[in-house]
Protein backbone atom coordinates (compact mmCIF):
# COMPACT_ATOMS: atom_id res chain seq x y z
CA UNK A 1 0.00 0.00 0.00
CA UNK A 2 2.92 2.30 0.72
CA UNK A 3 4.10 1.88 -2.86
CA UNK A 4 0.69 2.92 -4.09
CA UNK A 5 1.06 6.29 -2.41
CA UNK A 6 4.39 6.96 -4.07
CA UNK A 7 3.61 5.88 -7.63
CA UNK A 8 0.40 7.16 -9.19
CA UNK A 9 -2.05 4.59 -10.62
CA UNK A 10 -1.30 3.45 -14.16
CA UNK A 11 -4.70 4.64 -15.25
CA UNK A 12 -7.18 6.74 -13.38
CA UNK A 13 -10.60 8.09 -14.21
CA UNK A 14 -12.05 11.00 -12.31
CA UNK A 15 -15.77 11.68 -12.29
CA UNK A 16 -16.45 10.51 -15.84
CA UNK A 17 -19.85 11.52 -17.14
CA UNK A 18 -21.55 10.67 -20.42
CA UNK A 19 -25.05 11.27 -21.70
CA UNK A 20 -26.18 9.48 -24.84
CA UNK A 21 -29.56 10.23 -26.39
CA UNK A 22 -30.84 11.81 -23.18
CA UNK A 23 -29.74 8.85 -21.05
CA UNK A 24 -27.19 9.31 -18.32
CA UNK A 25 -24.95 6.39 -19.34
CA UNK A 26 -22.09 7.29 -17.00
CA UNK A 27 -22.71 9.25 -13.83
CA UNK A 28 -19.53 10.61 -12.25
CA UNK A 29 -17.62 7.31 -12.32
CA UNK A 30 -14.18 7.33 -10.76
CA UNK A 31 -11.72 4.49 -10.61
CA UNK A 32 -8.01 3.94 -10.27
CA UNK A 33 -5.90 1.05 -11.54
CA UNK A 34 -2.65 0.66 -9.61
CA UNK A 35 0.11 -1.24 -11.36
CA UNK A 36 -0.48 -4.97 -11.63
CA UNK A 37 -4.03 -4.73 -10.39
CA UNK A 38 -6.94 -6.57 -12.01
CA UNK A 39 -10.39 -5.06 -11.66
CA UNK A 40 -13.55 -6.67 -12.96
CA UNK A 41 -16.65 -4.78 -14.02
CA UNK A 42 -19.88 -6.65 -13.61
CA UNK A 43 -23.47 -5.62 -13.93
CA UNK A 44 -26.51 -5.97 -16.14
CA UNK A 45 -26.51 -5.04 -19.82
CA UNK A 46 -26.87 -1.31 -20.31
CA UNK A 47 -25.21 -0.55 -16.98
CA UNK A 48 -22.51 1.45 -18.74
CA UNK A 49 -19.61 -1.04 -18.52
CA UNK A 50 -18.76 -0.87 -22.20
CA UNK A 51 -19.18 2.91 -22.34
CA UNK A 52 -16.90 3.28 -19.33
CA UNK A 53 -14.16 1.18 -20.96
CA UNK A 54 -14.42 3.10 -24.22
CA UNK A 55 -14.30 6.43 -22.39
CA UNK A 56 -11.04 5.38 -20.74
CA UNK A 57 -9.25 5.62 -24.11
CA UNK A 58 -11.57 8.24 -25.61
CA UNK A 59 -13.07 5.95 -28.25
CA UNK A 60 -16.19 7.50 -26.77
CA UNK A 61 -15.31 11.00 -25.60
CA UNK A 62 -16.70 11.59 -22.08
CA UNK A 63 -18.81 14.73 -21.52
CA UNK A 64 -17.12 15.49 -18.23
CA UNK A 65 -14.35 14.25 -15.99
CA UNK A 66 -10.74 13.44 -16.73
CA UNK A 67 -8.40 10.56 -17.49
CA UNK A 68 -4.93 10.36 -15.99
CA UNK A 69 -2.21 8.12 -17.37
CA UNK A 70 0.49 7.55 -14.75
CA UNK A 71 -0.63 10.65 -12.90
CA UNK A 72 -0.71 12.97 -15.93
CA UNK A 73 -4.00 14.25 -17.22
CA UNK A 74 -4.59 13.38 -20.88
CA UNK A 75 -5.52 16.30 -23.12
CA UNK A 76 -8.07 14.74 -25.45
CA UNK A 77 -7.98 17.70 -27.81
CA UNK A 78 -4.39 16.93 -28.79
CA UNK A 79 -4.35 14.24 -31.43
CA UNK A 80 -0.80 13.30 -30.51
CA UNK A 81 -1.63 12.79 -26.86
CA UNK A 82 -4.68 10.79 -27.79
CA UNK A 83 -2.73 8.44 -30.08
CA UNK A 84 -0.03 8.08 -27.45
CA UNK A 85 -2.62 7.25 -24.74
CA UNK A 86 -4.24 4.64 -26.98
CA UNK A 87 -0.90 2.99 -27.70
CA UNK A 88 -0.35 2.57 -23.99
CA UNK A 89 -3.87 1.36 -23.28
CA UNK A 90 -4.62 -1.92 -25.08
CA UNK A 91 -8.23 -2.70 -25.84
CA UNK A 92 -9.99 -5.99 -26.50
CA UNK A 93 -13.49 -5.98 -27.96
CA UNK A 94 -16.37 -8.40 -27.62
CA UNK A 95 -16.52 -9.02 -31.38
CA UNK A 96 -12.72 -9.14 -31.92
CA UNK A 97 -12.67 -6.51 -34.69
CA UNK A 98 -9.82 -8.13 -36.57
CA UNK A 99 -8.92 -6.54 -39.90
CA UNK A 100 -10.55 -9.00 -42.29
CA UNK A 101 -8.21 -8.45 -45.25
CA UNK A 102 -5.06 -9.18 -43.26
CA UNK A 103 -3.63 -12.48 -42.04
CA UNK A 104 -3.21 -13.07 -38.30
CA UNK A 105 0.43 -11.99 -38.52
CA UNK A 106 -0.41 -8.89 -40.59
CA UNK A 107 -3.15 -7.96 -38.11
CA UNK A 108 -0.54 -7.78 -35.38
CA UNK A 109 2.06 -6.16 -37.62
CA UNK A 110 0.12 -3.30 -39.20
CA UNK A 111 -0.06 -0.95 -36.21
CA UNK A 112 3.58 -1.63 -35.33
CA UNK A 113 4.51 -0.31 -38.76
CA UNK A 114 1.98 2.52 -39.03
CA UNK A 115 1.98 3.75 -35.45
CA UNK A 116 5.38 2.78 -34.07
CA UNK A 117 7.17 3.25 -37.39
CA UNK A 118 8.89 -0.14 -37.17
CA UNK A 119 10.37 -1.73 -40.28
CA UNK A 120 8.36 -4.49 -41.94
CA UNK A 121 10.93 -7.07 -40.89
CA UNK A 122 11.17 -6.06 -37.22
CA UNK A 123 7.42 -5.66 -36.95
CA UNK A 124 6.91 -9.08 -38.52
CA UNK A 125 9.31 -10.71 -36.09
CA UNK A 126 7.62 -9.11 -33.10
CA UNK A 127 4.20 -10.07 -34.48
CA UNK A 128 5.23 -13.73 -34.66
CA UNK A 129 6.60 -13.58 -31.12
CA UNK A 130 3.29 -12.17 -29.85
CA UNK A 131 1.31 -14.80 -31.73
CA UNK A 132 3.40 -17.55 -30.22
CA UNK A 133 2.73 -16.03 -26.78
CA UNK A 134 -0.99 -16.69 -27.29
CA UNK A 135 -0.28 -20.12 -28.80
CA UNK A 136 -1.08 -19.24 -32.41
CA UNK A 137 2.28 -19.31 -34.16
CA UNK A 138 1.04 -22.05 -36.48
CA UNK A 139 -1.98 -19.94 -37.50
CA UNK A 140 0.03 -16.81 -38.37
CA UNK A 141 -0.67 -17.07 -42.10
CA UNK A 142 -4.42 -17.66 -41.75
CA UNK A 143 -7.02 -14.98 -42.41
CA UNK A 144 -9.80 -14.11 -39.95
CA UNK A 145 -12.33 -15.90 -42.18
CA UNK A 146 -10.48 -19.16 -41.46
CA UNK A 147 -10.00 -18.72 -37.70
CA UNK A 148 -12.36 -19.83 -34.93
CA UNK A 149 -13.82 -17.21 -32.59
CA UNK A 150 -11.42 -18.14 -29.81
CA UNK A 151 -8.46 -17.91 -32.17
CA UNK A 152 -9.67 -14.53 -33.44
CA UNK A 153 -9.87 -13.18 -29.92
CA UNK A 154 -6.37 -14.48 -29.16
CA UNK A 155 -5.04 -12.74 -32.30
CA UNK A 156 -6.75 -9.56 -31.08
CA UNK A 157 -5.01 -9.97 -27.71
CA UNK A 158 -1.65 -10.52 -29.43
CA UNK A 159 -2.31 -7.42 -31.57
CA UNK A 160 -2.93 -5.30 -28.47
CA UNK A 161 0.03 -6.77 -26.57
CA UNK A 162 2.41 -6.07 -29.44
CA UNK A 163 2.00 -2.35 -28.78
CA UNK A 164 3.45 -3.00 -25.32
CA UNK A 165 0.55 -1.44 -23.40
CA UNK A 166 0.76 -0.47 -19.73
CA UNK A 167 -2.83 -1.46 -19.13
CA UNK A 168 -5.43 -3.56 -20.92
CA UNK A 169 -9.15 -2.90 -21.20
CA UNK A 170 -11.15 -6.03 -21.99
CA UNK A 171 -14.75 -5.44 -23.04
CA UNK A 172 -16.60 -8.76 -22.60
CA UNK A 173 -13.81 -10.71 -24.31
CA UNK A 174 -15.67 -14.04 -24.26
CA UNK A 175 -19.30 -12.98 -24.72
CA UNK A 176 -19.34 -13.61 -28.47
CA UNK A 177 -17.72 -17.03 -28.20
CA UNK A 178 -19.22 -20.50 -28.33
CA UNK A 179 -18.99 -22.09 -24.88
CA UNK A 180 -16.30 -24.58 -25.88
CA UNK A 181 -14.01 -21.77 -27.09
CA UNK A 182 -14.19 -19.62 -23.97
CA UNK A 183 -11.56 -21.59 -22.07
CA UNK A 184 -8.68 -20.89 -24.44
CA UNK A 185 -9.26 -17.12 -24.23
CA UNK A 186 -9.64 -17.17 -20.45
CA UNK A 187 -6.35 -19.07 -20.20
CA UNK A 188 -4.57 -16.30 -22.10
CA UNK A 189 -6.15 -13.64 -19.88
CA UNK A 190 -5.17 -15.57 -16.74
CA UNK A 191 -1.64 -15.82 -18.07
CA UNK A 192 -1.56 -12.03 -18.55
CA UNK A 193 -2.79 -11.43 -15.01
CA UNK A 194 -0.19 -13.79 -13.59
CA UNK A 195 2.51 -11.90 -15.45
CA UNK A 196 1.46 -8.71 -13.71
CA UNK A 197 -0.53 -6.96 -16.48
CA UNK A 198 -2.75 -4.19 -15.18
CA UNK A 199 -6.26 -4.90 -16.44
CA UNK A 200 -9.87 -3.95 -16.24
CA UNK A 201 -12.29 -6.55 -17.56
CA UNK A 202 -16.00 -6.33 -18.20
CA UNK A 203 -17.28 -9.88 -18.14
CA UNK A 204 -20.05 -12.25 -17.14
CA UNK A 205 -17.58 -15.06 -16.36
CA UNK A 206 -18.08 -14.75 -12.62
CA UNK A 207 -16.17 -17.71 -11.26
CA UNK A 208 -13.24 -17.11 -13.58
CA UNK A 209 -12.96 -13.45 -12.68
CA UNK A 210 -13.48 -14.14 -8.98
CA UNK A 211 -10.33 -16.22 -9.08
CA UNK A 212 -8.11 -13.49 -10.46
CA UNK A 213 -9.70 -10.12 -9.65
CA UNK A 214 -8.32 -7.89 -6.96
CA UNK A 215 -11.55 -5.98 -6.99
CA UNK A 216 -15.09 -6.35 -8.31
CA UNK A 217 -16.90 -3.21 -9.39
CA UNK A 218 -20.64 -3.67 -9.71
CA UNK A 219 -22.23 -1.19 -12.09
CA UNK A 220 -25.85 -0.30 -12.52
CA UNK A 221 -27.45 2.66 -14.33
CA UNK A 222 -24.14 4.36 -15.06
CA UNK A 223 -22.77 4.13 -11.54
CA UNK A 224 -20.44 1.88 -9.60
CA UNK A 225 -22.78 0.93 -6.76
CA UNK A 226 -20.65 -1.71 -5.04
CA UNK A 227 -16.97 -2.46 -4.97
CA UNK A 228 -14.76 -4.78 -3.00
CA UNK A 229 -12.82 -8.02 -3.18
CA UNK A 230 -14.69 -10.91 -4.79
CA UNK A 231 -14.53 -12.94 -1.58
CA UNK A 232 -16.13 -10.10 0.33
CA UNK A 233 -18.90 -9.33 -2.15
CA UNK A 234 -19.71 -12.96 -2.92
CA UNK A 235 -19.87 -14.17 0.70
CA UNK A 236 -23.18 -15.91 1.22
CA UNK A 237 -24.26 -13.55 3.99
CA UNK A 238 -22.96 -10.39 2.37
CA UNK A 239 -26.42 -9.51 1.12
CA UNK A 240 -24.75 -7.58 -1.70
CA UNK A 241 -26.39 -6.62 -4.96
CA UNK A 242 -23.37 -8.24 -6.61
CA UNK A 243 -24.09 -11.62 -5.01
CA UNK A 244 -27.72 -11.55 -6.10
CA UNK A 245 -26.72 -10.66 -9.69
CA UNK A 246 -23.96 -13.27 -9.88
CA UNK A 247 -26.17 -15.97 -8.45
CA UNK A 248 -28.76 -15.23 -11.10
CA UNK A 249 -26.42 -15.34 -14.10
CA UNK A 250 -24.58 -18.39 -12.75
CA UNK A 251 -27.88 -20.19 -12.48
CA UNK A 252 -28.72 -19.28 -16.07
CA UNK A 253 -25.35 -20.25 -17.49
CA UNK A 254 -25.26 -23.53 -15.54
CA UNK A 255 -22.28 -22.64 -13.38
CA UNK A 256 -22.00 -24.15 -9.91
CA UNK A 257 -24.72 -21.84 -8.65
CA UNK A 258 -25.13 -19.80 -5.54
CA UNK A 259 -23.61 -22.41 -3.25
CA UNK A 260 -20.41 -22.54 -5.26
CA UNK A 261 -20.24 -18.76 -5.47
CA UNK A 262 -20.93 -18.34 -1.80
CA UNK A 263 -18.01 -20.57 -1.05
CA UNK A 264 -16.00 -17.91 -2.80
CA UNK A 265 -13.22 -19.51 -4.78
CA UNK A 266 -14.77 -22.96 -4.73
CA UNK A 267 -15.14 -25.87 -7.08
CA UNK A 268 -16.46 -23.81 -9.98
CA UNK A 269 -13.34 -21.67 -10.03
CA UNK A 270 -11.02 -24.67 -10.15
CA UNK A 271 -13.14 -26.09 -12.96
CA UNK A 272 -12.77 -22.82 -14.85
CA UNK A 273 -9.01 -22.92 -14.46
CA UNK A 274 -8.64 -26.46 -15.69
CA UNK A 275 -10.89 -25.83 -18.68
CA UNK A 276 -8.73 -22.84 -19.52
CA UNK A 277 -5.50 -24.77 -19.28
CA UNK A 278 -6.85 -27.62 -21.38
CA UNK A 279 -8.06 -25.15 -23.98
CA UNK A 280 -4.65 -23.60 -24.36
CA UNK A 281 -2.90 -26.98 -24.41
CA UNK A 282 -5.07 -28.19 -27.25
CA UNK A 283 -4.28 -25.12 -29.34
CA UNK A 284 -0.54 -25.00 -28.70
CA UNK A 285 1.68 -24.99 -31.77
CA UNK A 286 3.22 -28.29 -32.76
Amino acid at each position, binding site marked *: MAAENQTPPVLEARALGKTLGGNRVLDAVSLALPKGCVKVLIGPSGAGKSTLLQCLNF*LIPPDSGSILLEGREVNARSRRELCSLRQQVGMIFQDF*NLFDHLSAMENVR*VALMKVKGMSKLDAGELALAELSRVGLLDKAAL*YPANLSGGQKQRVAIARALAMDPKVMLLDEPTSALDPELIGEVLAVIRDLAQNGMTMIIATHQISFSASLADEFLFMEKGRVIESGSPAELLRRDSGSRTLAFCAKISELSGEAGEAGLAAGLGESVRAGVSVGAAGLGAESPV
Partner: protein
Amino acid sequence: MSTTYLEFLRAELVPGLMEGLWTSIAVIVPSAALGVLIGLFAGVLRVYGPRPVRQFTEAYVSLFRGTPLVVQVFFWYFALPYISIGGHSIVLDAIPASILAFGLCSGAYQSEYIRGGLLSIKRGQIRAALALGMTTRQAVQSVVLPQAFRRALPGCGNELIYLIKYSSLASIITVNELTGTATTIAKNTWRNIEVFCTLGVYYLVLVTLATWLLHLLEDSLSVPGFERHKS
Protein backbone atom coordinates in the same frame (compact mmCIF):
# COMPACT_ATOMS: atom_id res chain seq x y z
CA MET B 1 -18.12 -4.44 -108.42
CA SER B 2 -19.39 -6.31 -105.38
CA THR B 3 -16.58 -7.88 -103.42
CA THR B 4 -16.93 -10.72 -100.89
CA TYR B 5 -17.26 -9.96 -97.18
CA LEU B 6 -13.71 -11.18 -96.52
CA GLU B 7 -12.22 -8.93 -99.19
CA PHE B 8 -14.29 -5.95 -97.95
CA LEU B 9 -13.14 -6.75 -94.41
CA ARG B 10 -9.48 -6.90 -95.37
CA ALA B 11 -9.40 -3.95 -97.77
CA GLU B 12 -11.64 -1.41 -96.07
CA LEU B 13 -13.35 -2.36 -92.84
CA VAL B 14 -10.41 -3.58 -90.71
CA PRO B 15 -7.99 -0.75 -91.66
CA GLY B 16 -10.74 1.82 -91.00
CA LEU B 17 -11.90 0.29 -87.73
CA MET B 18 -8.31 -0.17 -86.49
CA GLU B 19 -7.84 3.57 -86.63
CA GLY B 20 -11.17 4.07 -84.89
CA LEU B 21 -10.16 1.53 -82.29
CA TRP B 22 -7.10 3.55 -81.25
CA THR B 23 -9.22 6.69 -80.97
CA SER B 24 -11.75 4.75 -78.88
CA ILE B 25 -8.98 3.56 -76.57
CA ALA B 26 -7.66 7.13 -76.36
CA VAL B 27 -11.12 8.17 -75.11
CA ILE B 28 -11.89 5.15 -72.90
CA VAL B 29 -8.63 4.87 -70.91
CA PRO B 30 -8.43 8.49 -69.65
CA SER B 31 -12.20 8.57 -69.03
CA ALA B 32 -11.99 5.38 -66.99
CA ALA B 33 -9.01 6.68 -64.99
CA LEU B 34 -10.78 9.99 -64.40
CA GLY B 35 -13.97 8.18 -63.40
CA VAL B 36 -12.24 5.89 -60.90
CA LEU B 37 -10.31 8.79 -59.39
CA ILE B 38 -13.38 11.02 -59.03
CA GLY B 39 -15.41 8.07 -57.78
CA LEU B 40 -12.83 7.23 -55.13
CA PHE B 41 -12.65 10.79 -53.83
CA ALA B 42 -16.39 11.41 -54.02
CA GLY B 43 -17.12 8.03 -52.42
CA VAL B 44 -14.77 8.62 -49.48
CA LEU B 45 -16.04 12.18 -49.03
CA ARG B 46 -19.66 11.05 -49.13
CA VAL B 47 -19.00 8.73 -46.19
CA TYR B 48 -16.32 10.49 -44.15
CA GLY B 49 -16.43 14.10 -45.33
CA PRO B 50 -17.71 17.02 -43.28
CA ARG B 51 -21.36 17.85 -43.84
CA PRO B 52 -21.03 20.62 -46.49
CA VAL B 53 -18.61 18.50 -48.53
CA ARG B 54 -20.96 15.55 -48.22
CA GLN B 55 -23.83 17.65 -49.52
CA PHE B 56 -21.75 18.93 -52.40
CA THR B 57 -20.74 15.44 -53.50
CA GLU B 58 -24.34 14.21 -53.12
CA ALA B 59 -25.44 17.04 -55.42
CA TYR B 60 -22.76 16.10 -57.94
CA VAL B 61 -23.93 12.50 -58.00
CA SER B 62 -27.62 13.41 -58.35
CA LEU B 63 -26.88 15.79 -61.21
CA PHE B 64 -24.70 13.44 -63.23
CA ARG B 65 -26.73 10.32 -62.58
CA GLY B 66 -29.99 12.15 -63.14
CA THR B 67 -29.39 13.60 -66.61
CA PRO B 68 -28.89 11.72 -69.88
CA LEU B 69 -25.27 11.24 -70.87
CA VAL B 70 -26.02 12.57 -74.38
CA VAL B 71 -27.19 15.83 -72.84
CA GLN B 72 -23.98 16.04 -70.80
CA VAL B 73 -21.85 15.34 -73.88
CA PHE B 74 -23.70 18.07 -75.82
CA PHE B 75 -23.27 20.46 -72.90
CA TRP B 76 -19.48 20.13 -72.69
CA TYR B 77 -19.05 20.33 -76.46
CA PHE B 78 -21.73 22.75 -77.64
CA ALA B 79 -22.75 24.81 -74.57
CA LEU B 80 -19.54 25.29 -72.61
CA PRO B 81 -17.98 27.63 -75.20
CA TYR B 82 -20.91 30.07 -74.71
CA ILE B 83 -20.31 30.36 -70.97
CA SER B 84 -18.04 33.31 -70.51
CA ILE B 85 -16.60 34.35 -67.19
CA GLY B 86 -14.89 37.72 -67.23
CA GLY B 87 -14.62 37.60 -71.00
CA HIS B 88 -12.99 34.16 -70.98
CA SER B 89 -14.66 31.04 -72.18
CA ILE B 90 -13.46 27.48 -72.55
CA VAL B 91 -13.71 25.71 -75.87
CA LEU B 92 -13.01 21.99 -75.75
CA ASP B 93 -12.12 19.84 -78.74
CA ALA B 94 -14.34 16.86 -79.33
CA ILE B 95 -12.03 14.30 -77.70
CA PRO B 96 -11.32 16.24 -74.48
CA ALA B 97 -15.02 17.13 -74.25
CA SER B 98 -15.95 13.42 -74.48
CA ILE B 99 -13.33 12.44 -71.88
CA LEU B 100 -14.63 15.09 -69.50
CA ALA B 101 -18.24 14.03 -70.02
CA PHE B 102 -17.57 10.31 -69.63
CA GLY B 103 -15.19 10.79 -66.68
CA LEU B 104 -17.63 12.96 -64.72
CA CYS B 105 -20.58 10.69 -65.42
CA SER B 106 -18.62 7.53 -64.67
CA GLY B 107 -17.26 9.09 -61.46
CA ALA B 108 -20.79 9.64 -60.19
CA TYR B 109 -21.60 5.94 -60.60
CA GLN B 110 -18.19 4.79 -59.30
CA SER B 111 -18.65 6.84 -56.13
CA GLU B 112 -21.84 4.90 -55.48
CA TYR B 113 -19.98 1.57 -55.60
CA ILE B 114 -17.11 2.90 -53.47
CA ARG B 115 -19.59 4.28 -50.93
CA GLY B 116 -21.31 0.90 -50.72
CA GLY B 117 -17.94 -0.78 -50.23
CA LEU B 118 -16.97 1.63 -47.46
CA LEU B 119 -20.30 1.20 -45.66
CA SER B 120 -19.98 -2.59 -45.80
CA ILE B 121 -16.91 -2.48 -43.52
CA LYS B 122 -17.98 -2.70 -39.89
CA ARG B 123 -17.25 0.35 -37.76
CA GLY B 124 -15.69 -1.92 -35.14
CA GLN B 125 -12.59 -2.30 -37.30
CA ILE B 126 -12.08 1.47 -37.33
CA ARG B 127 -12.51 1.54 -33.55
CA ALA B 128 -9.94 -1.25 -33.21
CA ALA B 129 -7.49 0.65 -35.43
CA LEU B 130 -8.01 3.84 -33.40
CA ALA B 131 -7.61 1.87 -30.17
CA LEU B 132 -4.17 0.78 -31.40
CA GLY B 133 -3.16 4.42 -31.75
CA MET B 134 -3.79 4.94 -35.46
CA THR B 135 -5.15 8.27 -36.66
CA THR B 136 -8.51 8.27 -38.45
CA ARG B 137 -6.68 8.81 -41.71
CA GLN B 138 -4.37 5.83 -41.13
CA ALA B 139 -7.37 3.70 -40.16
CA VAL B 140 -9.22 4.61 -43.36
CA GLN B 141 -6.12 4.14 -45.53
CA SER B 142 -4.80 0.87 -44.20
CA VAL B 143 -7.90 -0.80 -42.82
CA VAL B 144 -11.06 0.44 -44.53
CA LEU B 145 -10.05 1.33 -48.09
CA PRO B 146 -8.26 -1.94 -48.94
CA GLN B 147 -11.37 -3.87 -47.90
CA ALA B 148 -13.86 -1.43 -49.40
CA PHE B 149 -11.97 -1.53 -52.69
CA ARG B 150 -12.20 -5.32 -52.83
CA ARG B 151 -15.92 -5.16 -52.06
CA ALA B 152 -16.48 -2.40 -54.64
CA LEU B 153 -14.41 -3.98 -57.40
CA PRO B 154 -17.18 -6.01 -59.12
CA GLY B 155 -19.42 -2.92 -59.29
CA CYS B 156 -16.61 -0.64 -60.42
CA GLY B 157 -15.67 -3.17 -63.10
CA ASN B 158 -19.24 -3.25 -64.30
CA GLU B 159 -19.17 0.53 -64.66
CA LEU B 160 -15.93 0.30 -66.69
CA ILE B 161 -17.67 -2.11 -69.05
CA TYR B 162 -20.58 0.33 -69.44
CA LEU B 163 -18.03 3.05 -70.17
CA ILE B 164 -16.50 1.04 -73.02
CA LYS B 165 -19.92 0.88 -74.63
CA TYR B 166 -21.09 4.42 -73.98
CA SER B 167 -17.82 5.74 -75.40
CA SER B 168 -19.64 5.20 -78.73
CA LEU B 169 -21.62 8.36 -77.92
CA ALA B 170 -18.49 10.38 -78.72
CA SER B 171 -19.31 9.75 -82.38
CA ILE B 172 -22.26 12.18 -82.18
CA ILE B 173 -19.89 15.08 -81.46
CA THR B 174 -17.68 14.20 -84.45
CA VAL B 175 -15.09 11.97 -82.74
CA ASN B 176 -13.99 9.35 -85.26
CA GLU B 177 -13.74 6.48 -82.83
CA LEU B 178 -15.03 2.97 -83.61
CA THR B 179 -18.69 3.90 -84.06
CA GLY B 180 -17.94 7.16 -85.87
CA THR B 181 -15.63 5.43 -88.33
CA ALA B 182 -18.08 2.58 -88.87
CA THR B 183 -20.91 5.00 -89.61
CA THR B 184 -18.78 6.74 -92.22
CA ILE B 185 -17.80 3.44 -93.88
CA ALA B 186 -21.44 2.31 -93.88
CA LYS B 187 -22.56 5.54 -95.51
CA ASN B 188 -19.95 5.22 -98.24
CA THR B 189 -20.41 1.56 -99.01
CA TRP B 190 -24.04 0.82 -98.08
CA ARG B 191 -22.86 -2.48 -96.56
CA ASN B 192 -24.68 -1.77 -93.30
CA ILE B 193 -25.10 -5.37 -92.12
CA GLU B 194 -21.42 -6.22 -92.49
CA VAL B 195 -20.21 -2.93 -91.02
CA PHE B 196 -22.40 -2.84 -87.92
CA CYS B 197 -22.09 -6.56 -87.16
CA THR B 198 -18.30 -6.28 -87.39
CA LEU B 199 -18.43 -3.16 -85.20
CA GLY B 200 -20.36 -5.19 -82.62
CA VAL B 201 -17.63 -7.81 -82.63
CA TYR B 202 -15.02 -5.12 -81.90
CA TYR B 203 -16.91 -3.95 -78.80
CA LEU B 204 -17.49 -7.54 -77.72
CA VAL B 205 -13.76 -8.22 -77.89
CA LEU B 206 -12.96 -5.03 -75.95
CA VAL B 207 -15.47 -5.89 -73.24
CA THR B 208 -14.28 -9.50 -73.02
CA LEU B 209 -10.72 -8.32 -72.66
CA ALA B 210 -11.68 -5.84 -69.93
CA THR B 211 -13.69 -8.50 -68.09
CA TRP B 212 -10.72 -10.84 -68.18
CA LEU B 213 -8.36 -8.14 -66.86
CA LEU B 214 -10.80 -7.28 -64.06
CA HIS B 215 -11.02 -10.92 -63.04
CA LEU B 216 -7.23 -11.11 -62.96
CA LEU B 217 -7.20 -8.07 -60.68
CA GLU B 218 -9.92 -9.51 -58.45
CA ASP B 219 -8.06 -12.79 -58.16
CA SER B 220 -4.78 -11.09 -57.36
CA LEU B 221 -6.46 -9.17 -54.51
CA SER B 222 -8.39 -12.19 -53.32
CA VAL B 223 -7.93 -13.29 -49.71
CA PRO B 224 -10.16 -15.62 -47.68
CA GLY B 225 -13.37 -13.73 -47.00
CA PHE B 226 -12.93 -11.58 -50.11
CA GLU B 227 -12.98 -14.16 -52.89
CA ARG B 228 -14.53 -13.72 -56.31
CA HIS B 229 -17.56 -15.91 -56.56
CA LYS B 230 -16.91 -18.00 -59.63
CA SER B 231 -19.97 -19.02 -61.56
